């Protein structure tokens, strides 16, 4: 682990910290449920989901009280003021144990990461500690209906009204917003300048007056994603980040945090691997055994392929992080991390469906675990769409990492209100 090379010697050493973490984890945390997968679960009712969410808030509070919350967050904001190497050690130690998986993304990153990067001292004092204590859960009010990959094209408008802003418009794909406390919100503060020069980022109570929320049913089941309609939502100027109209400076970083979630030192990531979307390979073996395909060499070949991809991904994610640290890659290298997670997730979902056999399309109750592989397969692309599409990641890699010519952006240099937003006539 070359990471240890970067330890700041003024603070508790990584090894001391690792020992302290190991001792505490084994004394206080239950072993992880082998069958459980990180994040929300489509097969839970809202009540079960909320109960589990509350339990995990408590778990986060335990971590906070024990001095393991916000490992790389400055102490003045409730964190531990340690290094990414410490966070990595913690990830390794907590592997196999219960942790607040539902509180990680987008709460700690991109949301808390953005606040820490661009918030004023007061804003950070106000918002970061409650996040680390599990009291406030943040989601992103970023994407918009019809917005696609062009985040800077946001059509939600913020109009200045004295010390306040009035927000009007609509946001979508806010994952978990229905159970959230705050929404990090990108809105247009000036429609008379090119799109990149008239944006602002606001700290918005998730259910502020004027926000109407609609939950989106996904084809794989579940309705974790939400759409919000803003009608004259009042936000004080003190809850806006950065300089007026300069929100895109924040937006660029925000999208970077989103792409590089798999590398973020702010989240707990057992094992430190990066392919959060992939079902564990061990579960593929169990699946193939139940579906009776484990002895079919074609099935074995596919399981081995997914296993190889997953082992490679762990080292690749570490190399990408190291490369960005050492300057071998610039910050945009994070797009490599996002692309890797996306393609691996799709491939493993496809293999899982292959292994499911006929029970993957029509099944009895006792085969429900197999049938769910068919259901998941229907939304196998989700991991290449959510968190920025893999198409955008490939643009970023070729243009920002390899330095190839940028794609033409017809909306770049004209006042936002004049940008073509659809076919003039067909």
């Amino acid at each position, binding site marked *: 682990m070359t990471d240890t090379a970067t330890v700041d010697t003024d603070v508790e050493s990584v090894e001391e910290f690792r020992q302290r973490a190991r001792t505490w984890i084994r004394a206080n945390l239950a072993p992880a449920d082998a069958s459980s997968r990180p994040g929300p679960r489509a097969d839970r009712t809202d009540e079960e989901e909320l109960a589990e969410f509350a339990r995990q808030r408590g778990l986060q509070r335990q971590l906070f009280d024990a001095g393991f919350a916000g490992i790389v967050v400055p102490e003045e904001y409730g964190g531990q003021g340690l290094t990414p190497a410490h966070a990595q050690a913690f990830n390794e130690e907590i592997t196999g144990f219960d942790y607040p998986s539902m509180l990680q993304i987008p709460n700690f990153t991109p949301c808390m990461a953005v606040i820490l990067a661009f918030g004023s001292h007061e804003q950070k004092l106000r918002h970061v500690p409650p996040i680390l204590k599990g009291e406030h859960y943040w989601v992103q009010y970023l*994407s918009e209906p*019809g917005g*696609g*990959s*062009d985040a800077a*094209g946001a059509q939600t408008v913020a109009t200045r009204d004295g010390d306040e802003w009035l927000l009007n418009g609509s946001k*979508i*794909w806010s994952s978990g917003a229905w159970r959230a406390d705050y929404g990090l919100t990108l809105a247009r503060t000036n429609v008379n300048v090119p799109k990149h020069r008239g944006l602002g980022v606001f700290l918005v109570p998730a259910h502020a007056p004027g926000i109407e929320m609609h939950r*989106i*049913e*996904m*084809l*794989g089941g579940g309705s974790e*994603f939400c759409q919000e309609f803003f009608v004259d939502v009042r936000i004080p100027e003190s809850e806006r980040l950065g300089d007026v109209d300069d929100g895109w400076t924040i937006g660029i970083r925000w999208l970077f945090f989103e792409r590089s979630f798999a590398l973020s030192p702010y989240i707990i990531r057992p094992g430190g691997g990066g392919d959060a979307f992939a079902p564990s390979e061990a579960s593929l073996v169990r699946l193939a055994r139940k*579906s*009776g395909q484990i002895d079919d060499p*074609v099935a074995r070949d596919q399981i081995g392929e997914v296993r190889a991809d997953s082992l490679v991904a762990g080292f690749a994610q570490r190399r990408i992080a190291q490369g960005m640290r050492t300057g071998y890659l610039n910050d945009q290298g994070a797009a490599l991390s996002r692309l890797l997670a996306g393609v691996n997730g799709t491939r493993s979902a496809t293999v899982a469906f*292959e292994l499911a*056999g*006929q*029970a*993957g*399309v*029509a*099944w*009895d*109750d006792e085969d*429900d675990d197999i*049938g769910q592989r*068919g*259901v998941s*397969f*229907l*939304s*196998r*692309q*989700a991991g*290449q*769409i*959510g968190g920025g*599409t893999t*198409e955008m990641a*490939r643009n970023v890699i070729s243009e920002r990492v390899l330095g190839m010519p940028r*794609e*033409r*952006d*017809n*909306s*770049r240099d004209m006042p936002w209100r004049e*940008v*073509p*937003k*659809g*076919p003039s006539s*067909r």
Partner: protein
Amino acid sequence: MELELTSDQEFFAETTRKFLEDKTPVSELRAKRNDPAGFDRDFWVQGAELGWTSLLVSEEDGGGSISGRPVADLALVGFEFGNHAAPGPLVPAAIVAGALSRAGSDEQKGEALGALLSGAAIGTWAFSEPRPHDALGDVTLSAEVTGDTVRLSGVKAPVESAGQAEYFFVTARTGDGLTQVLVPASTPGVAVKPMHSIDLTRRFGRLTFDGVELPASAVVGEVGRAGADVDWQTQVAVAVELSEMVGAMDRAFKMTLEWAFDRYSFGRPLASYQELKHRFADMKLWLEASHAIADGATDAVGEARPEAWDLLSAGKAYVGHYGVELMHDCVQMHGGIGVTFEHDMHLYLRRVVLGSRLYGSVAEHRGRLTSSLEQKEDAA
């Protein structure tokens, strides 16, 4: 779908198309998402009047095709079913009627066939069996004939519209041969259990035959000698299933093509991005090739040509792979809304994914093609 149809075929396809647009618009399919049948009986009766169940039935028996190429005509309906994600057991119902017409006794034709042709009764084909016997054509449900009684023991799953059918046309094993039996759903000892499915509109069930006894007159054709009939039924099922998949692919591709022109990103239509353009080019190729092999295989089945199975397997192997990839790429092109229940794309996605597993997986059909090549090689 074939590029050059007779005017009768054009009219026939058009009629079914209009009927489905009228009776099972997307709103109706969504409304019926939790309906045990997935469709109303009068929908089925009217469809039967359009000829859905009678295409494979001889004219003497009250059926008849449109073009003199019954399988091709049925494939036209299959295409429209896929194109509209329509509900109802089109394939098994048409096959059961056709099989009765081919091999049924006058008694059976009198009793059941008339009801099936009018849609008054639904007949479905109990052919597939659950693992470890889920390979295409693997039949273990036993039919023992003693005196004038036939006794059925075993399990069939998945069986389409099992919960709605009045008749189960059961393919069973008698020693080394196959026997087919027409079983009224009300027969004591037949248990029907609904199954879950990834499809939103079609329904499947599991049938358990616990020593079910019927008069020998329930046997269709000769005991232990139904092999050729079963082979024909399977060929027709694969051929029409292919057209259903192509119909769903065709719809998804058109929706996505339109989206690419209408949807602007960075002030440009998606259709102006070269990487997306090239994926559309691949999808267009996959779609046309899928049309071509579905029609080619259907022809071969209709004309009972020796290469029919090779072409059917080639179709299932190709469409089962590229069709599913095409659908997922259509989803990807739509972005977030593509993976929501609120968008219609999944109705067609479900149809294609389901079709890729019914009547033999991609891997099974590839294996069959290789074995067939080996035989050719040895014969040469």
